[in-house]
């Protein structure tokens, strides 16, 4: 007889986030009313977070196949073949809402969750990357208020056509900072939530630029908590956090994004899957005890938008213990080697519920468990609580009957609970007993696989009525101070303050540490190979055009990997969007998927897995659509990997541009004939160039403008450039490579100087484009490389074979950093002064303020 302590009604189902249709479906599947525990089980399994009910129909359009793919979407992580009998398991996941409600624990458990996804496959985690998005941490879009003062700006930039509105954000920023009080010393955690929300809303309204001090102070505390949370978990666990990226936009003030990518390595034959086999085999619970933390984390936190009451959901945030996870890692890998384990899955979202019904469903079998045997942190937990708890550092595994002792012995050695709580059954049912009484009995497959699937309505958002575009300054103006301000903008500035808090070296495989190259590079011990990883995504561009924005995310991540000398081989993604119940959000999602699909197909990078995070909105305000792409690449000879740093004085600095149409042939006496490709001239289409530049980091930081359109993307050009970069690296023909992205060519060149040891650059460029577009435009398919004089001709020749244009930028030098454009010096400054603006910016913003009072 079924236990029915609480009467289940349609109202109760609604409170569990289940619609009337979904509730009817549940009744149909069961052929009766669900009891309270079963209702809870359905509500988490059919939550957006666990069921992908709104995204499924779109995700099917992503390319997931390739000869290198060993495991595509559907398992705990994607797996690719990396040669030498080895496999790489990698996946990206979000922990956005928990990180807003409780930044430290939210981010920490985000790391813990994705690490378990990796080692549950039998792979030892060897690297972690983080893609983070926060609201502004400085008043004004740029950190440099002086620049936003009209008179000041005038005196610097002469002559410069300006409209009064051009400075509106600047002045509002200055005034808001002038009125800054000590209000931000109060902790956002302790204080009423609605006030924070309203401040956040206000900031979004003020976007871009001027944000009130209270919001800025809170954004800084969220950033600080998230970074310390990631550091706490990753450092203690012993996995290097080797890279990632951070962006700051007003839209994230009330909804930061914490996306974590983890990579692991395993011998191919040692891979494990979460598929139950063998009727009668014991089901064993291992790891931490089950507590009341994280109940409904997935269904209530991750699958609903925020309101004033969200602060009350802090108890729904799980609490992580990296030490326990480290023990779990070592114990699981050791237990797997006994050969006595049949299947294993980590208890993440929906805890015991998802692991049991998913393993059963994948194996086409049933699972029966007795909750009384589950190790519990506190007495008298109900079946409902145990099935929905999201306590961390737990695993469920199926062992071979008769060999359970071998498994239990390993966990005992590591001091971990390991208890047989049930068995695999033939009936295809998830049967849950509590003290020998049946408290839930549900067809496992229906629960795991036959959840609702929605074809939600799509509708493009209303077009922006009157968009304000950048007016280009006159040619020949000195742009040095604008350049300096751009370098100090949080989005561009060095992220050292963040990554120095992460142990990025543990396990001694990190060849390219954070900040050294466009991608993180880790070697594979025992082989000649190394893997490169990069993650990218631009919410501003995706808001302006989700299709193009998503393509650019794929292209930049792949380009970054190629700049390290690695051939892109596969990708994972984390799709952060607003409420799927809004047609315009679903339209953004659908367009982004189409963009990713087209770009991944063109660049031959299959998607092996990922995660969808909907409901990223607070009080009805959605975040910018933010698909984040993580691309994995391989360097055949680790010693041929590339960094971004210039290496030697007098080396040639070349701009490689894949966006070419025609070519000409030069006859160079002794060198013979040389075919040269010519970059497409964008200046011929002034209107579109203006719109593209209006979406650039420069436009936002210096002009306070965020409008227009993302740069046009040319996937064929990207593909040519990527192939060329990989070829140049493997032939050892270039000294360094760095792609042109945020901040444009000028920032790219400066970063290669900053990364070097005391080197500088003298550049002489010619361009038909306006000065600012030429220096700070962010069109893709471009990278700069430095080349020794001996290799110059060879590089030009190889580039021609790949139909990529080579533009000579200048020579690596010492002393002043100077850029001449069409014969005029437009940027000139000593490298140390620029480097200080760039490298110290975050530290000045974050160390100065009273973060500690936040706790």
């Amino acid at each position: 007889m079924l236990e029915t302590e609480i009467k289940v009604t349609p109202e109760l189902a609604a409170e569990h986030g289940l619609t009337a249709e979904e509730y009817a479906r549940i009744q149909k599947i069961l052929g009766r009313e669900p009891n309270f525990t079963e209702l809870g089980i359905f509500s988490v399994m059919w939550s957006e977070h666990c069921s992908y009910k709104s995204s499924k129909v779109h995700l099917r359009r992503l390319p997931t196949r390739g000869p290198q793919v060993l495991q595509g979407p559907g398992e705990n992580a994607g797996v690719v073949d990396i040669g030498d009998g080895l496999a790489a398991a990698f996946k990206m996941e979000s922990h956005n809402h928990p990180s807003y409600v409780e930044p430290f624990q939210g981010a920490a458990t985000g790391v813990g969750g994705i690490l378990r996804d990796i080692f549950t496959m039998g792979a030892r985690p060897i690297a972690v990357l983080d893609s983070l998005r926060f609201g502004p941490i400085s008043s004004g879009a740029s950190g440099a208020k002086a620049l936003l003062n009209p008179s000041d700006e005038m005196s610097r930039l002469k002559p410069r056509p300006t409209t009064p509105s051009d400075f509106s954000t600047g002045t509002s920023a200055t005034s808001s900072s002038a009125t800054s009080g000590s209000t931000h010393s109060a902790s956002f955690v302790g204080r009423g939530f609605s006030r924070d929300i309203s401040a956040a809303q206000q900031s979004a309204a003020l976007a871009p630029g001027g944000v009130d001090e209270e919001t800025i102070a809170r954004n800084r505390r969220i950033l600080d908590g998230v970074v310390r949370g990631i550091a706490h978990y990753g450092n203690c666990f012993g996995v290097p956090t080797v890279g990632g990226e951070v962006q700051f936009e007003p839209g994230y003030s009330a909804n930061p994004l914490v996306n974590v990518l983890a990579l692991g390595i395993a011998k191919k034959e040692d891979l494990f899957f979460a598929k139950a086999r063998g009727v009668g085999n014991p089901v064993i619970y291992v790891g931490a005890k089950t507590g009341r933390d994280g109940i409904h984390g997935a269904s209530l936190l991750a699958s609903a938008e925020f309101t004033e009451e969200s602060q009350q959901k802090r108890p729904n945030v799980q609490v992580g213990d990296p030490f326990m996870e480290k023990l779990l890692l070592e114990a699981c890998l050791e237990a797997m080697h006994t050969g006595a384990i049949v299947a294993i899955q980590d208890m993440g979202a929906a805890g015991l519920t998802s692991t049991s019904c998913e393993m059963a469903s994948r194996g086409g079998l049933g699972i029966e468990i007795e909750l009384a045997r589950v190790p519990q942190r506190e007495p008298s937990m109900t079946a409902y609580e145990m099935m929905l708890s999201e306590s961390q550092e737990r695993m469920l595994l199926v062992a071979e009957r008769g060999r359970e002792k071998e498994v239990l012995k390993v966990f005992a050695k590591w001091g971990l609970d390991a208890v047989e709580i049930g068995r695999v059954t033939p009936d295809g049912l998830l049967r849950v007993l509590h003290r020998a009484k049946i408290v839930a009995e549900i067809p496992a497959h229906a629960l795991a696989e036959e959840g609702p699937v929605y074809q939600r309505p799509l509708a493009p958002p209303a077009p922006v009525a009157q968009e304000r575009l950048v007016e280009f300054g006159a040619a020949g103006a000195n742009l040095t101070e604008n350049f300096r301000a751009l370098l100090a903008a949080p989005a561009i500035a060095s992220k050292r303050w963040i990554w120095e808090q992460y142990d990025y070296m543990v396990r001694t495989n990190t060849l390219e540490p954070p900040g050294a190259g466009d991608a993180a590079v880790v070697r594979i011990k025992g082989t000649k190979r190394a893997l490169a990883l990069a993650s990218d995504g631009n919410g501003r561009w995706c808001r302006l055009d989700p299709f193009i924005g998503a393509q650019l995310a794929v292209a930049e991540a792949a380009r970054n990997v190629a700049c390290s000398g690695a051939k892109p081989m596969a990708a994972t993604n984390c799709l952060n969007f607003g409420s799927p119940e809004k047609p315009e959000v679903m339209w953004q999602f659908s367009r982004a998927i189409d963009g990713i699909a087209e770009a991944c197909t063109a660049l031959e990078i299959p998607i092996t897995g990922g995660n969808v995070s909907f409901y990223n909105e607070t009080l009805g305000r959605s975040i910018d659509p933010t698909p984040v792409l993580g691309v994995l690449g391989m360097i055949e000879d680790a010693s041929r990997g590339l960094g971004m740093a210039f290496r030697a004085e007098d080396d040639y600095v070349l701009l490689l541009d894949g966006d070419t149409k025609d070519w000409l042939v030069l006859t160079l006496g002794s060198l013979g004939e040389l075919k040269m490709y010519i970059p497409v001239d964008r200046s011929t289409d002034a209107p579109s160039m203006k719109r593209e530049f209006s979406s650039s980091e420069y436009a936002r930081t210096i002009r306070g403008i965020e409008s227009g359109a993302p740069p046009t993307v040319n996937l064929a050009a990207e593909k040519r450039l990527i192939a060329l970069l990989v070829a140049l690296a493997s032939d050892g023909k270039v000294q360094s490579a760095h792609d042109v992205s945020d901040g444009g060519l000028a920032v790219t060149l400066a970063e290669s100087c900053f990364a070097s040891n005391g080197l500088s650059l003298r550049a002489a460029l010619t361009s038909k484009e306006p000065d600012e577009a030429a220096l700070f435009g962010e069109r893709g398919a471009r990278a700069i490389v430095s080349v020794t004089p001996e290799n110059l001709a060879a590089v030009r020749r190889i580039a021609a074979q790949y139909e990529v244009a080579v533009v000579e930028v200048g020579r690596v030098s010492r002393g002043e950093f100077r850029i001449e454009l069409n014969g005029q010096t437009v940027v000139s400054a000593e490298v140390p002064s620029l480097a200080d603006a760039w490298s110290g910016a975050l530290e000045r913003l974050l160390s100065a303020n009273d973060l500690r009072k936040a706790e």
Partner: protein
Amino acid sequence: MKFGVVVFPGSNCDHDAWYALGEVLHQPVEFLWHQSEKVNGFDAILLPGGFSYGDYLRTGAIARFSPVMRAVEQFARGGGLVLGICNGFQILCEAGLLPGVLQRNAGMRFVCRQVHVRVETTDTPFTSAAKSGQVLQMPIAHGDGNYFCDEATLAELERHHQIVFRYTTPDGREDAAANPNGSLANIAGICNRERNVMGLMPHPERAVEAALGSADGLVILRSLIESLKRRAAVSA
């Protein structure tokens, strides 16, 4: 000659130490489980970095009571060579095998970066192959590396030349900017009076290949190997 790398629950630089000694320097090396009560047959014991027992309560405070530490203490009192790196250094201080304590970094944050340390004495089995005053580049990665002891102890350390490494600039100048964690007198590593036990916060085992940023850590590990060979020669 055989090296033992102790594995506490939560150690996470144990594999790195094993790799540096076994794979890079081709020395016989074995892991020592925290519950082993004997360290017989080992010529040098290495306490690796990490978060032993989660470093709950206080870094190294729980590890100090583990069965293997009783054996390591006997080993050390008998003159055996013991090297503690990062968490290992913290454990040695907690165990009383080295004086002083390691507090939270002055900046209150975990710090991971390449630093420079100056060799203050070559009169230890861990620095015998170094030149006096030689500056080594090695990475640090810790949240609690802020060395502290009382004035009397500091005077003792100075008098008996027990300060083995100090944080300095790349050109060997000792200044506040070069001190990454607020350590007293820029102390990065010390040894005991008998000079057979040394602890340091920087990671020599992470600095054994130029491809990873520095190979200066080899100076320390090679000193250790040479010292063991000399000892073997003497006792033979």
